């Protein structure tokens, strides 16, 4: 206490000290990362794991409960669920990633454009995004999918991606409106930097942490959207294996009480979703950390 009227009380330990006391893995989402890594590795190396051909219709063994030969049982078309999980997981993950990459790219470009435009144009573009946000997402997806015709992996990723960029665009636009008057942006503009150059070099590094968790959570939403669509029979057909299309057989499974057809693909879906969410939430927490006064 050097000062005479210093505030009495516990001096909170500085951020640095506390960080040093912790082990490297504390506060990091270790379990989700490990699980996610396992699932991703399993799906992309599915050729090594699969015990059967996932597309083979074994008509003698349909609706078989899990046993030694069929680890997770077989579905009502006689396909081995264990092999399908890994094989189909690849499709689901690819759709999640492609759709998210598309939505992030559209969101960033649209948001940056809107943010750097004059007031009135910005207003128009933002009203437009709000109208799009207000249309129920699933409905939009169903419409677009209908226009594109029969669904395949790429078309479904495209449809999901093109309908989920709005919230990212809103955040990017807010950030860009704040950043665009900074000196370094003006300097870059004066020196002849183009829109994309400034966006990539000066703006993106500043707002990337603000949208990172939204991007991660978009992966989750894309996977859910695909599975919901395929489940309704509007997405991938049954022959094209994904976690969603595996679940589209579940109506049948309910009648025969074949719980494994419903439970197992759903569990894999759920574990992946939870892990991705944890990762997203971790990023979000890191982005806005503040201490309680309570």
């Amino acid at each position: 206490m050097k000062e005479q009227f210093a505030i009495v009380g516990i001096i909170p330990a500085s951020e640095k000290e506390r960080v040093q006391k912790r082990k490297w893995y504390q506060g990091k989402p270790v379990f989700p990362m490990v699980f996610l890594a396992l699932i991703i590795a399993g799906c992309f190396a599915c050729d090594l794991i699969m015990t059967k051909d996932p597309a083979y219709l074994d008509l003698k063994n349909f609706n078989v409960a899990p046993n030694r030969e069929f680890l997770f049982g077989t579905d009502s078309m006689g396909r081995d669920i264990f092999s399908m999980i890994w094989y189909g997981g690849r499709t689901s993950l690819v759709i999640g990633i492609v759709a998210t990459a598309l939505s992030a790219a559209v969101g960033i470009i649209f948001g940056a454009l809107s943010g750097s435009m004059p007031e009135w144009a910005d207003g128009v573009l933002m009203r437009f995004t709000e109208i799009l946000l207000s249309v129920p997402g699933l409905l939009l997806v169903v419409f677009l999918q209908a226009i594109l015709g029969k669904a395949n992996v790429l078309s479904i990723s495209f449809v999901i991606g093109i309908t989920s960029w709005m919230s990212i665009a809103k955040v990017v636009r807010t950030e860009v409106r704040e950043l665009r008057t900074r000196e370094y942006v003006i300097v870059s503009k004066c020196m002849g930097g183009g829109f994309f150059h400034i966006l990539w070099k000066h703006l993106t590094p500043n707002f990337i942490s603000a949208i990172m968790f939204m991007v991660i959570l978009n992966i989750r939403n894309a996977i859910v959207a695909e599975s919901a669509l395929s489940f309704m029979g509007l997405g991938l057909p049954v022959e094209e294996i994904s976690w969603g299309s595996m679940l589209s057989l579940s109506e049948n499974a309910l009648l025969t009480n074949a719980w494994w057809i419903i439970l197992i693909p759903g569990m894999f879906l759920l574990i992946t979703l939870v892990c991705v969410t944890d990762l997203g939430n971790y990023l979000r927490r890191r982005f806005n950390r503040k201490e309680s006064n309570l």
Partner: protein
Amino acid sequence: MIKQSKGVYYGKKILLFILSVFLLSAAVFFISRLAPGDPLVSYYGDRAERMSFQERQWAEEKLGLTDSLPVQYIRWLGRAFQGDFGISYKYKRDVTEVIGERVGNTLILGGIGFLLIFGLALLLGVFCALHEEQLTDRIICRIGIVTSCIPEFWLSLLLILIFAVNLKWLPSGGAYTVGGAGEMGDRIRHLILPLLAVVTGHLWYYAYMIRNRILEETRADYVLLARSKGVKKSSILLKHCLRNALPSYFSIMAISVPHILGGTYMIEMVFSYPGIGTLAYESARYKDYNLLMVLCMLSGIGVILCSMAAQIINERIDPRIRNNPIMEGMEEG
């Protein structure tokens, strides 16, 4: 912002509303007509495929499908102003009649679900905020994250599998037993599983939101002041923080009406509950244009009205927002 009279303020809102509805109707109209598919199939069933060319032409003319799209749209708009939304191709009855039969069911499911979600979410959020980062909070957060990740349709399937197929406690679908309509107990028994699915699917999203809103408040300086004066933690939280957090909660409530209704659509489908959701799905699938149009307009108008209500609530309670065009914290997270 320049002060404006109330009339101008509400006038602007109403004008914006009309414009949005108009745009929405045009968008839905053109998108639904551009989508491939044969509306005649939904009107005539299998017979449509066996029709000769002349018969087809006659049928299309009768249903007004031969004109160019803008003409069709203007005709639809003109009739809509007189309250005539056309007939449903599939049910061969007035669209309003078909929807009228079903809308009550959806409102019951959605309405009860909505109240349950927000009541429980508030309780859960406050409880978690009181125990921030303690074991109870952590456990609830963990469970909450898992439940919020469960896809709604899968949850519904599981519920049916457990309670209807295996335990045989509750019916697996519909709104009432065939022939036994109107009985209270029967209806409630049919409502339990869909309600459970609706509530579990949405609960955590809102509970977590209110938890974080309250925790954000606890970072404010007035909390430090109250704390140093010796006010109890719980009473600061309930009397000061919660009060500041509630306005944004109300506006989120208003915004989320369509969100929750949209969620019930999916659940209605799985439980084959005779509501608007099942109807929308059918009409989109079978190109029942007139029906689809009105359903989309209904949900669109709902969304627009709700977000306007949210904005008005916000501005009423917190005048600072009026100067701030972006409403923070309302983006989907």
